[in-house]
Each structure stands twice: as C-alpha cells, then as structure tokens.
C-alpha cells in the first residue's frame, strides 16, 4: 500500500507538472492539459493491462518454451506483478475524473460552452483511443496478434 500511495503521489505531481507547463504558455489551456494527461494515463493503462494479459495467453498456448516465450513470459509476469502500483498507484494518481467533469461544467455555466462540450466529449474518446493504442503497443512489444 505504501508503494501504491507513493506512486499515486508521483502521478499527481506529474499531472500537475504537465498542467503547469501548459498553463504557463496559455492559462486557459490548462483543462486541455488535464485531458491529454487522462489520455496518456489511459494509454499506459492499456499497455500494462494487455502486457499482463498476453503473457497469460502465451503461457497457456505455447507448449515448448523457446527464448521468445521466456522473454514474453517474464515481461508479462513483471507487468502483472507491477499492476497495483503502476495502475492503482501511478495511473490512478496521474488521471483525474473530478477535474475532467467539474471544470467543464463550471465552464458551461460561465458561458464557455464550446470548450465545455469539447472537454466533456473528447476526454472519453481520447482516453479510449489512448487505451487501444496502449493495447496495440503490447502486440508489437510481445510479437502477438
């Protein structure tokens, strides 16, 4: 649990850093930074989830272990064992749902309806896209199809 909390804290600091860098350029673009952070967090999540999953599939389907199998298996086992602190910890702290909804809602009430609609609508799309790009990356990384 200590490692999960530590990685979650790191995730929060990383999100804040990205927001800060974007905000220093254009203040009003901060919510877009939050959106991109969420998409990137989803991408990492997609990679870790399927990196763990592919190893399980291969360990069942491969009868005679060769070098590739061993590498894949060890890599997957590592991602599976690292899931709590990578996913619940880092990605959980890195991404945020509260700001992703509350800030656009207040934008909407404040008359910035175009930006509010983009943020609310595009965030889940980009997150899904990010997750699937992460999944795709594991197929390349683990040479599976």
């Amino acid at each position: 649990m200590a490692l999960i909390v530590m990685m979650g804290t790191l995730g929060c600091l990383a999100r804040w850093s990205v927001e800060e860098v974007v905000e220093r350029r254009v203040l009003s673009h901060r919510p877009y930074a939050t959106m991109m952070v969420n998409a990137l967090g989803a991408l990492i999540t997609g990679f870790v989830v399927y990196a763990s999953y592919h190893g399980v599939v291969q360990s069942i389907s491969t009868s005679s272990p060769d070098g590739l199998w061993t590498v894949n298996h060890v890599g997957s086992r590592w991602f599976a064992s690292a899931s709590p602190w990578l996913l619940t910890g880092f990605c959980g702290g890195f991404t945020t749902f509260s700001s992703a909804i509350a800030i656009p809602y207040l934008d909407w009430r404040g008359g910035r309806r175009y930006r509010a609609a983009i943020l609310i609508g595009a965030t889940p799309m980009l997150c899904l896209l990010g997750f699937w790009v992460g999944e795709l990356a594991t197929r390349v990384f683990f040479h599976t199809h």
Partner: protein
Amino acid sequence: MVDEDVSLPPLRLGWTVLAVAAGGAIGTLIRAEILTLQSTPPSLDVPSVAAHPWTAYVPWWLLVVNTFGVLVAAWLLAGPLRGRSPDDNWRLFALTGFLGGLTSYSALIRDVDLIKAHSIVGATVTLVGAIVVGVFAAALGVLTARLTWP
C-alpha cells in the same frame, strides 16, 4: 478564467509541490482502500466471459468515488475556492492533489474495456452513464455551494 501572470517564484514552489503531494497521497490512499471493497473481476479468458453477465464487471465503488469527487470538486470551485487561481495552494491541495488522487479516469477506461469483452452496449452504458451522472453530481455540487456558501 482570467489570463494573468502565472510565474511561480522558486520559494513558493516548495509549498506548491507539498500541497499537490500531500493531497495526492491522501486521495490515492483512500481510493486504493475503497477499491479493495470490490472483489477482483473474473479474468478476460473465454470461460469467464461466457459465465458472467457484463454487470458483474461494473466498477461500482470506482463510480461512487468518481461521482463523489466530481460533487466535491464542483462544490469547492463554486464555493470555498471560487475565484481562486489554479495556482492557489489550497486549490492545488484539494483539487489537483486530493480529488485528483481520489478519482481516476484510467481505471474507468480499463473497466469499460473489460465490460466491452462481454457487451458493447454494457461498455457504452457504463462510460456514458459515468459521465452523465458526473455532470449531475457537478450540478448538485454547485447547487450545494449556493446553499452553503453565501
């Protein structure tokens, strides 16, 4: 939001990092503890896909935590933190740190992907439902701020 000077003097940076880190640590700890209440969903392999309805994979506790986070965030932004800059240390502690650590978009997407293996409709309902309920929670948060924060 008003465009203003957002430069951060080095001396303030330490407090700012501390605010985000402290909030993030507390938020992450609470989320991680709450998520242990939900039993791990059955794995992605074929037999369990057939054996469980998609509703068995809905992350109820995560949805509760996320919705609560939106409600509190909206209440803070419309009430106690109204008019404060995004660089205000209290706002960074509560919103960026605590509520950011408490809520998670990546976990929601992961669970939506898991549900998708069972039912596309179920995955869509879960994701859209989480956002729609979140928007209502934000509205409730603003309403609460009006009643509790004159």
